[in-house]
């Protein structure tokens, strides 16, 4: 499962980054690193890009770039 598969409002924890993806560098630099918790907040029209809350910041990311971020759903509460 990747960030691209999350629904609005869902929380998840980053499991791994797919370093074969061309955007993986960028993604990691923006702070998407394994172990971090994130939440998908909004989706733009056509469901793309997503806005994600991460490390206290809001980051807009295209679905295609989000595909390299593998996550597991966080337990609700």
């Amino acid at each position: 499962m990747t960030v691209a598969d999350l629904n609005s409002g869902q929380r998840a924890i980053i499991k791994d980054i797919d370093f074969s993806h061309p955007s993986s560098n960028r993604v990691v630099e923006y702070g998407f690193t394994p172990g971090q918790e994130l939440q998908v907040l909004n989706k733009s029209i056509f469901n793309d890009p997503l806005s994600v809350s991460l490390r206290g910041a809001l980051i807009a990311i295209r679905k295609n770039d989000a595909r390299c971020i593998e996550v597991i759903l966080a337990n609700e509460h």
Partner: protein
Amino acid sequence: MSIDTVKEKKLLITLVGPPNSGKTTLFNLLSGKKHKTVNYPGATIEYSISSFLEQYGINANLMDSPGIISLIPASPDEKVTIDNLYIHPEFGKPDLIIVTADASQLSRHLLLARQIIDSGFKTIVVLTMNDLLAEKSFSIDDKELSVLLNCEIIKFDPRKSDGINTLIDIIKSNLNGDTKTINKRVRITDDDILCIYREIEVIEKHVLIDLNKDNHEDPRVAKANRELVIAGAGSMIKLPDKLTVNIDKILLHKYWGLFIFIFVMSLMFTSIFWLASPVMGLVDDSIQALGNLVTDTFGNYWYSDLISKGIIGGFGVVLVFLPQILILFFVLGILEDSGYLARGAMIIDRPLSMLGLNGRSFVPMLSGFACAIPAIMAARTIQNKRERYLTIFIIPLMSCSARIPVYGLLLAFLFPGKYFLSGLILSLIYVTGVIISLIVAGIINRYKKTFLKFEDNSSFIMELPVYRVPKITNVIKNTYSNAVQYLQKAGPTIITFSLIIWLLTYFPNNAPDTISKENGNTASISKLIESERISNSYAAQIGKTIEPVMRPLGLDWRVGVSLIATFAAREVFVSSLALMFKVTETDDNMSATLIKEMKNAKISGTNEYLFTTATSAGLIVFFMLALQCISTIAITKKETGGWRIPILQLIIYTGSAYLLAFVTVNGLRFIGIN
């Protein structure tokens, strides 16, 4: 690039930091400059350099740099930015680096600070946005952070000057002694970044102070507590700004988001006309009064004609539209300061990417409404080369502020006194420009193999800054300096060309002796003399050679000459018309007089009216499309590294402008609108 008193031996201090971390604000504070600060990642696109304000007593150059989030370049352009940091081709190696980091986003912003320190630069870190962190009831233990990073840290709000002396002292003490930095380019891999992030997360736990919990306790207990609290996954500090999240629920709503976006953009365009109309009359009247004053004091000589018509008249007709340009800058400024622009980029990333553009094309396109030149430079923030070139290609189709006087005049001619309608039509013009640009992008994208032959990874990742109530004083200051810049840039060109056109229309000044002085009053006689003088002038002789090209558009040599002059600056069109139709001294204001003259003007040698609904509409279409700006051509050549794109633009845009103007004029005539 602005270069102020750059001397060879001066020390160099470079400001480095992630986008939106306060570099430019700090640069302005230390140097006394007024560079634009914007609540949008990617507002600074060039290195700029200045000396420190004298009062600080630091004899060094200060350099502001474009924001980067890490030392790994993601694109050729970013590589240049980062290479220039190590050693700038003009300014050399930095003696000291000041890294700015947003305290409310410490774990992300320390990444760059850490990389810089590890590369061996002499570094100090300025923590900004402590006020935002305090809103979340946190603070940072800067002493502890300083120990852990092994570098001097100072908390500072660059928007205020409180505590500036401490900062200055730290800078000074770091400049003393051995300033030779031994920076080496280390290869940073993905693993390194993951590693640094892990370290930073540990550091963050040690330095974050929870203001709610730590206040009353023993510092050691507090510190132990910190580590416990922050370790929890749902820690407060990981939560984004609450208000921002709530506003985003509306502004980034899946459907409403796009709707609001379109509404905001259309409101911007319409307000240009609506808000400006009350002020315009005022400006207009005062300029006319000034012109009349000159004629009254100097009498009816060639030099009073030169001053009142050539200079005041030529420049004045353009000045009349300054209020509209100011309002455009003002509205843009408010949007920039609010934090909405990044949202706009996100909302239209998908639609734009279908046309081969990128969400990051949005801000360059939007600034294209002010002026194409900074807009084309702003396209540098687009990493993908194909998308960047495509954005540059279509920017000239955005109706820039230089076209406002032209549209303003023609709309006032077409719909006299109807401000509401003119405002609507003006936004229609803007929107049509955008739609045409998107069509062009779509077409080129389909045949990209022939036009733009590079493939890069296309991506869109952008930080969405916290919303802020725009600081009106700031916006007004920015608007003012934009307006001054506008006048400084356009003014001399307009005046020069007004003079040239005045000369060309005044001389050789063949005194016509065919006019008998028997009938008619003095006013009509001087009018006859004037029209005789113009039709024998040098301008007429030049203009008549291009008249065959103008006739299909229903226009004559006078408009032709004015159109040629627009290549210097589009506004010249209006000033040159004012000269061609000799706006003479009247009680009416200047633009009213010009419009009256335009109404009566006939194509020379015929009985056909020159400015009709059809021909004016044709002119508007022409101005919407034609690439008539030498500076735009030059900057496009520079930014794309060759003549290919600007020449393609020139041929395609100016060619289709002529063609579509022709279709408009004759189409309208065909359906009976003359």
